[in-house]
Structure formats: C-alpha cells, structure tokens
C-alpha cells in the first residue's frame, strides 16, 4: 500500500466528522448521566479543533465564522451538548481573536491556546443581576500589577472541565454596573466551589453548574477593551450564529431520522406513501428556512466584521437577534413534526428514530438568553431604528 493511503483526511470537515462519530457514540450516556462529554472534547483536542479560529500567525488556522458554524452543525447532529461546549468555547475565542490582538498577554494566550488546545469557559451570569449579563455586581480589584476577583457565578458551563475561564465584572469598586471588563483566568489562578447543580431537562452534558469563583492573576490579563464593546462587536453575533448552528444540527438530525422512518415504511408497503410523508415535506421546508436564515446571518456578520460602526449599529443587533429568535423557535416545530412522523419509535429511547434527547436539548434554545428579553430589546430598538426594506441588501 502506498503511503498516502495511510494519511488521514485532514480537511476541517473530515476532522469534525471524526469528532462527531465519537460524540454520537457517547451522546445518550452523556445525556442520561448528565455528565461532561469528555470523550468528545478529548477528540476535539486530538483533532485540534479548539484552536482553529486563532489566526495562523499565532499557531491557529484562521478558520472563518462560516467554517466554525459548519463544525457546530456537524457536532450538533451527533451530540448537542458536545456541540454547545464547542460553540461556547469558540465564542470565547472570538473575543480573544477580535479584541485581544493589541495586548501582548492575550496574543501569548492565543498561541498557548492553539498549541495546548485549551478549553475556555466563561462566567458572565451572576446572582442578583436578573439574567442581564451586561450588568455586574462583582468588581475587579486592581492592586499594582495584580487583579483579584470574587464572583457568585450562577452558571459556568463546563466550568469544572475548563482550562481557563473568562470572567466579567465591574471595572473597579466605584464603577457603574454597566461599566464592565472581562478578564482571562487560567487554571491554577482560580478556585471554583460548586454552589448549584446542573440537573436539567436537556443539554445535560454542558454541566453548567453554578460556582463561587475566586481568582487572582496579573492585571495584564484584563481585556484592554470595555466588555460592552466586546459584547456588541463579537459576542452578540457569534453567540447567536453559532448557537443557531448547533440548533440547526439538532433539527437536521431529527429530520434525517424522520426521513429514514418514512423511507423504511414506504419500502415495507411497496412504495405506498405512509401517513407521515406530508409532514416530512413540511419539516424539510422549515429546515430549509432555518438554514437560509442562519446562512444569511453569517453573511451579514462576515460583511459587517470589517466595520466596527456597523457591528455596533442597531440594524446589526436586530438582525442577529432575529436569527436567534427564529432558529430557537423553528427547531421546536421541526423536531415536533419529526416526532409525530416517527410516532412511538421516536418517543421511545434507544431506537434508531429516538427523538426525546433532540426535543429536550432543543428546548434550551429559547431560554439561552430568554427570547422574551431579546424581543424586548429588539422592540426598544425599533422605536428609533429605520427599517431596511431592500431584498438583497
């Protein structure tokens, strides 16, 4: 056999599919036991997926937002919790890539992340802020070259399994709640004590427990830009787009299962169309709408990326909010259709057509930043924003 025959396919798609195969194998166990998808994240590290977004100059692969969205979707079709861990990690990395290139420490951290495949978590929610991550109660204390922070973080997804955590806080003891900064703390620079258990309907493997976070690190690890800018210019878009890509993956797999079910039924009955066939056509229609919406959102972000003014404009925020609202609501309709198509075989666990995990995981989408909060936010902006009625833009 010639040498190239042994070489693995190292395209991003092939690497993502290999990780997805591992994630799929353990998805039901991760879900049932509510445990961290260790096998899948180890596979992400082995395939070097955690650093793909880092610029090549710092040892990464300069992967585009579209490429990362595709990986989110591929993983989402296998195990939504693993895919969501990957997506949340990449959202953190986007803050580094977009806002860390002017700071020596953050550049070094990007190099370290790419070379050691570090998994990054975040602590943006806090007891007492009512779910609005653009407010902080805790304040970072800067003492010479050192910073210290204690945060009662009600959620740190995969916090116990991360290699670093990005934590938001007020910029000083005197700062207003909206005057926030974000700081990178590496493992060893913080302690976390679990305060709240993550025992949920779905997305059980993200292990989004609550912790009391206490960290101390060199003050250079604070992002030089205000968190408000980071949130508006990279987090808003990457969160809504990559979450939506994960959700698309869940819905796409549900439709695939429903299609297999209908096809198998049609074969058994010599080609007679089973009763669920019409619903399958409807689900396929909705899946295409969902896909088109996400693809358009990815393009809007890619186009706006070069222009900070456009990124912080209302029109852009509304567009990203709309992507999130539409995808989080549409997936539930699609998966529900798939469930009706597969009937009891979809309702039961452990069949090739099982959809219980999909449906439970999908229910998190409307709540990850409550859709009601997003609707309220958009409706406020619509008081002053002028609609763009063009079709092509």
């Amino acid at each position, binding site marked *: 056999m010639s040498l190239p025959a042994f070489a693995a396919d190292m395209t991003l798609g092939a690497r993502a599919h290999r990780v997805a195969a591992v994630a799929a194998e353990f998805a039901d166990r991760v879900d049932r036991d509510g445990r961290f998808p260790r096998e899948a994240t180890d596979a992400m590290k082995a395939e070097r997926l955690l650093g793909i977004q880092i610029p090549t100059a710092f040892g990464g692969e300069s992967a585009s937002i579209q490429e990362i969205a595709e990986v989110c979707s591929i993983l989402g079709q296998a195990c939504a919790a693993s895919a969501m861990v990957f997506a949340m990690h990449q959202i953190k990395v986007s803050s580094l890539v977009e806002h860390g290139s002017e700071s020596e420490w953050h550049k070094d951290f990007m190099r370290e992340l790419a070379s050691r495949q570090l998994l990054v978590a975040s602590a943006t929610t806090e007891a007492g802020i009512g779910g609005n991550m653009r407010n902080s109660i805790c304040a970072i204390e800067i003492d010479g070259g050192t910073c210290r922070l204690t945060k009662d973080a009600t959620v740190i997804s995969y916090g116990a399994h991360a290699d670093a955590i990005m934590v938001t806080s007020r910029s000083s003891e005197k700062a*207003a709640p*909206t*005057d926030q900064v974000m700081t990178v703390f590496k493992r060893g620079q913080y302690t976390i004590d679990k305060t709240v258990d993550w025992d949920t309907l779905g997305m059980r493997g993200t292990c989004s427990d609550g912790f009391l976070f206490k960290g101390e690190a060199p003050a250079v690890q604070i992002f030089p830009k205000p968190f408000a800018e980071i949130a508006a210019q990279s987090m808003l878009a990457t969160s809504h787009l990559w979450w939506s890509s994960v959700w698309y993956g869940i819905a796409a797999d549900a439709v695939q299962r429903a299609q297999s079910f209908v096809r198998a039924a049609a074969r058994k009955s010599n080609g007679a169309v089973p009763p669920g066939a019409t619903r399958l056509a409807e689900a396929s229609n909705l899946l295409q709408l969902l896909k088109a919406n996400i693809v358009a959102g990815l393009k809007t972000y890619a186009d706006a990326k070069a222009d900070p003014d456009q990124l912080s404009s209302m029109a852009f925020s509304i567009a990203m909010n709309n992507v999130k609202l539409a995808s989080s609501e549409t997936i539930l309709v699609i998966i529900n259709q798939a469930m009706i198509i597969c009937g009891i075989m979809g309702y039961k666990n452990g069949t090739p057509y099982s959809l219980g995990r999909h449906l439970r995981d999908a229910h998190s989408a409307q709540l990850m930043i409550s859709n009601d909060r997003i609707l309220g936010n958009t409706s406020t*902006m619509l008081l002053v924003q002028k609609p763009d009625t063009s079709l092509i833009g």
Partner: protein
Amino acid sequence: MNETIRELLAKVGGLPVAVETLEDGADLYAAGLSSFASVQLMLAIEEKFDIEFPDNLLNRKSFASISAIEATVAQILKAREAA
C-alpha cells in the same frame, strides 16, 4: 445645544450620577447609560430637535458622550440645511 442635551440626559438617561458632574467627553455607557435609556434619549432628542437619526448614525459611538451626541445632531441639522 449642549444645555438641551444635558437636560434631556438628566430627564431620561437614568444615570446613577448627576449630569452636571459629567465632562462633555465622558463615556456615558461607563457612567451607567443603559441601552434602553439610550433609546429613550434618542427619542427625546428626535422630538426636541425635530430630526430623525438615520440608520448609519444609530450606533454606540454616536451616543458615547455628550460631545458625540452634539456632533451627531449637528451633522444631521447641517445635512438638512444643505438639502
């Protein structure tokens, strides 16, 4: 115009600090201007100056400070005179 903007900011800005204590160039978001209050402020300014903010000026930068708001409003008024 500066006075009028300050009056409106005091009325609808919901800032935890007194508007008089803010320099013209002070970062209003850091001073506690929420995104909801910034929209209230935009509406109040539109009403007061009988203008409409075009979409390309509806961003954080245009409302980042009292002087930024002044410049934004002046730009719109100037464009209207020229028209």
